């Protein structure tokens, strides 16, 4: 398991790919927002928490199709499935590696991008906290979606469609927490709900994903 985790990290870091690109996409989306809604800083302040959450979500989404598809194409997934590791564990570990290479950098970059969007000063802490709480759920749900679409050629867009509705609750609570904090309100309730969702997803989703992947492997 640990070997798998570090292999996935090494692969993401080497091999001109994956790592960093998600971050770049996040940056670009955030930069494009003022171009499209206009440069008034009051307006930007108002929508900043939502835009940051949505951008992080989209960046996370777009890197999902590498999560399993590469291993599927080169046959490594078949070999892993015949190994002593349980399929659920494999998926959980892969989701964890995905989070470390995608979610974590997004969390760390969010405050910097918050500056670009003129985020209210009170909002930074809770924004980071809510992203840190929420993105693991995004990765795990994404692993489920990747398992669903693993056999489909160029399934990236389909994957997005399947996964986005599943992201809605996480997005709502996460963005709500960040927004409340930015407006000086108390973000405790949405943060608790967000943590609850993430815990539930982390506990249950690997099994659903394992089930789906087992069907796809046959």
């Amino acid at each position, binding site marked *: 398991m640990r070997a798998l985790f570090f292999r996935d990290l090494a692969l993401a870091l080497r091999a*001109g*790919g994956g790592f960093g690109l998600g971050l770049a996409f996040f940056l*670009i989306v955030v*930069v494009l927002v003022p171009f499209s809604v*206009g*440069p008034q800083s009051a307006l*930007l302040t108002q929508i900043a928490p939502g835009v940051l959450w949505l951008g992080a979500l989209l960046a996370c989404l777009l890197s999902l199709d590498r999560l399993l598809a590469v291993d599927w194409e080169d046959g490594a997934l078949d070999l892993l499935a015949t190994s002593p590791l349980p399929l659920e564990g494999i998926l959980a570990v892969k989701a964890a590696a995905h989070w470390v290479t995608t979610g974590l950098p997004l969390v760390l970059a969010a405050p910097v991008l918050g500056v670009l969007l003129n985020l209210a000063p009170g909002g930074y802490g809770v924004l980071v906290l809510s992203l840190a709480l929420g993105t693991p759920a995004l990765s795990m749900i994404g692993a489920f979606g990747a398992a669903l679409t693993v056999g489909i050629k160029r399934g990236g867009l389909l994957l997005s469609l399947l996964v986005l509705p599943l992201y809605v609750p996480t997005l709502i609570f996460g963005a709500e927490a960040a927004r409340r904090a930015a407006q000086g309100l108390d973000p405790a309730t949405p943060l608790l709900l967000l943590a609850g969702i993430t815990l539930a997803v982390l506990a249950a989703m690997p099994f659903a994903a394992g089930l789906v992947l087992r069907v796809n492997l046959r």
Partner: protein
Amino acid sequence: MSLWEYANPVKFLALSERVMPWLWVSSAVCLVVGLIWGFFFTPDDFRQGSTVKIIYLHVPAALMAINAWFMMLVASLIWIVRRHHVSALAAKAAAPVGIVMTLIALVTGAIWGQPMWGTWWAWDPRLTSFLILFLFYLGYVALWEAIEDPDTAADLTSILCLVGTVFAVLSRYAVLFWNQGLHQGASLSLDKEENVADVFYFPLLVCIGGFVLLFLALVLYRTGTEIRVRRTRALMAREAKLA
């Protein structure tokens, strides 16, 4: 003797070995002298206070950020027209340096903006254009990294550099149209007429010189590294064929 002689990697390496020590030393001297002069021995500005000292980093970095891209554009054109490998590799070598210069300009600008404009960041055209330039740099480097075959990568990144330049200029006009700026605003006391007589001006010149020299040294050194990577690759390919 034509300038193109130095397009030969061996000649280039020989030349750069010879001039690089001078470049490193003189850039270090200029930077140390300029920054110490600027930091310790210039007065505060009457309106900006001590923040004016940021200018010794901000302006040289901003200049080099643009000029690095310009140098990459020229090198790309040379590669496309005359296909000198050193030229393509020099463009590749300059890009990360350009990224760092852009970052310095952005960060020092942001730090300066907080006391001057009351905000870290504003969607001012000048600043926005820099951000877009930063994105172009990122894409350029990512494309180099992604392509295995070095000559294909050189061709593709050169064309991207050309097309990107056109779009960067277009973006600049679009951004000007989209928002009028703060950057040239009244908060700047360094207007041409006042021009802060020499007190700020000379150390700034020294710093700019230091940045230019540092850029040259870095690009020469990194180009040498890229040439050695290519040479290693060629030797290994030959080894594999002999085996």
